[in-house]
């Protein structure tokens, strides 16, 4: 299970970075989203995963080892909410830029380099 997650995280990072290097707006946004998912999954995996068990105590009320740490999941929750807001903003920003500039090619975004 862990190995599978690790491979998925690696794939998400690769895909995210690849998409961010594309020239189209939409692909850059998809890249950003994948990248934040990758970071979230990474934290999730780091907090250890136990299959089919309750959080701390087993059925008899005794602590079992190794239990999965709930804190990373709380962190991810925060990160997902923040990421959601920021990505929503980014999408609107890219849309406005597309409307104003009339292109979705990042290579055409040269206006800031002119004096």
């Amino acid at each position, binding site marked *: 299970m862990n190995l599978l997650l690790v491979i998925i995280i690696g794939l998400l990072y690769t895909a995210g970075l690849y998409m*961010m290097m594309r020239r189209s707006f939409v692909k*850059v946004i998809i890249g*950003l989203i994948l*990248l*934040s998912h*990758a*970071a*979230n999954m*990474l*934290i999730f995996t*780091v*907090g250890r995963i136990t299959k089919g068990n309750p959080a701390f105590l087993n059925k008899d009320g005794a602590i079992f080892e190794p239990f999965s*740490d709930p*804190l*990373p999941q709380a*962190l991810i929750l*925060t*990160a997902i909410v*923040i990421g959601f*807001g*920021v990505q929503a*903003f*980014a999408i609107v*920003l*890219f849309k*406005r*830029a597309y409307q*104003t*500039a009339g292109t979705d090619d*990042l290579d055409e*975004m*040269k*206006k*800031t*380099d002119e*004096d």
Partner: protein
Amino acid sequence: MLIALPIISPFFFGILMMLFWKNFKAHSYLNLFSSVVSVIISVLLIDRVIEQGIITLQIGGWKAPFGIVIVADLFSSIMVVITAVIGFATALYSMATMDHDREKFGYYPLLQILLMGINGAFLTGDIFNLYVWFEVMLISSFVLLALGGKREQLEGAIKYVTLNLLSSALFLAGVGILYGLAGTLNMADLAVKLPNLEDPEMTTVVSILFLIAFGIKSAVFPLFFWLPASYHTPPAAVSAVFAGLLTKVGVYALIRVFTLIFVNDISFTHTIILVIAALTILTGVLGAAAQMNFRRILSFHIISQIGYMIMGLGLFSSLAIAGGILYIIHHIIVKTNLFLVSGFVNELRSTYDLKKLGGLYKLYPLVGLLFLIPALSLSGIPPLSGFWAKYSVIKAGIELDEFYIVAVALFVGLLTLFSMTKIWHEVFWKKNPEEEKTFNTINNTKQKVLSFLPIILLALITIIIGLNVEPFFNIAQKAADQLLNPEIYIKAVLGN
């Protein structure tokens, strides 16, 4: 309670403004009032920190390391004080120059939330909380940058947003791995637990992740490209706040984690930082030499100056870090001032292009003088503040026999002077190339006073630091000593 006020106060006023959204006249006055309150709070805070040492607040009564803790040591409180001063200066300047369209769309509440995020980042003692404050600061800066919707602004915002989100994702991954290693997020607790890990090499790996994440935010050598692409696009008041404060939050975070948490392998990590510093100092100033736009030149100089601060961290001696802190104080004040002056020139001539500007000294000698003070300070001419800041870091470099970086720092000082004289010549000295075009005149006395006042105020601070550097240096020295003795910080946060 006092320690949480620099965060609560801007938040309160930001919310208050949102309650009567349409009355933007009231926004501007509330903004000014809030900035005065922040100055008072921050001065009280630093006074108490000097008196009592590091003070902490365990939020909700959850004891560290389990709850989130707010910590004010000297370095944090210095940063909070400067933030408040810059907030005040921009509040005045915004009242004079901000257009109604931006005011209508909540410019002032956004500014307050931005200041809240910055103060939060300076005061938090928890690394995940630092991430949250970074995001608070980023999202309000995104909106401030894009507000107005002109094409350059949107393009600048795209570059700024994309690269900063990338940095946030790296930061978040770093936090996650760090938690996996040490099982804690409290910075003091991390400092205790990381040296006892089974494989300390992992700490170094994570530290590089943090170096990259904070490096993007503070615009160091290979990661700075978002800065000159975006800082010259928003109105002068906005770019003045950004230029003064935002990158310095990144520098603050770098100094914090690389003096408290990642000190296990100094010979490796801090050498990298030193090399980056040298390259940042050099590329920033060379980039500036090629530009012909007032604010783009200044933007490239931010990068170059960041290098000097990072150099203080990389040298890692008491004097070097004190010099770095003094440099941050000096730089924030001077840089904000230069952007405000550039904004004033733009008010008069409606352009930032050096080729189109000229002849301003003849008509407005006072503006010329007010440009010259921060410009000379930036290039490190005695007796202004920049001289002492440069002197301290360079002296620390000589003491540690790091002659390469000292040579770079001294050489770049000259090039900075060259850049500043270029602006001086093109904007103020040479003949006006567009004789037929008349100057915009600012007849409104209130507007004139409000835009001159912050410029004069910041210029005065530069001169005061320059002529009477001792108290400022002493406080920077004390802050550096606190940073170099993490035990004090750890004891203040965790108790015994």
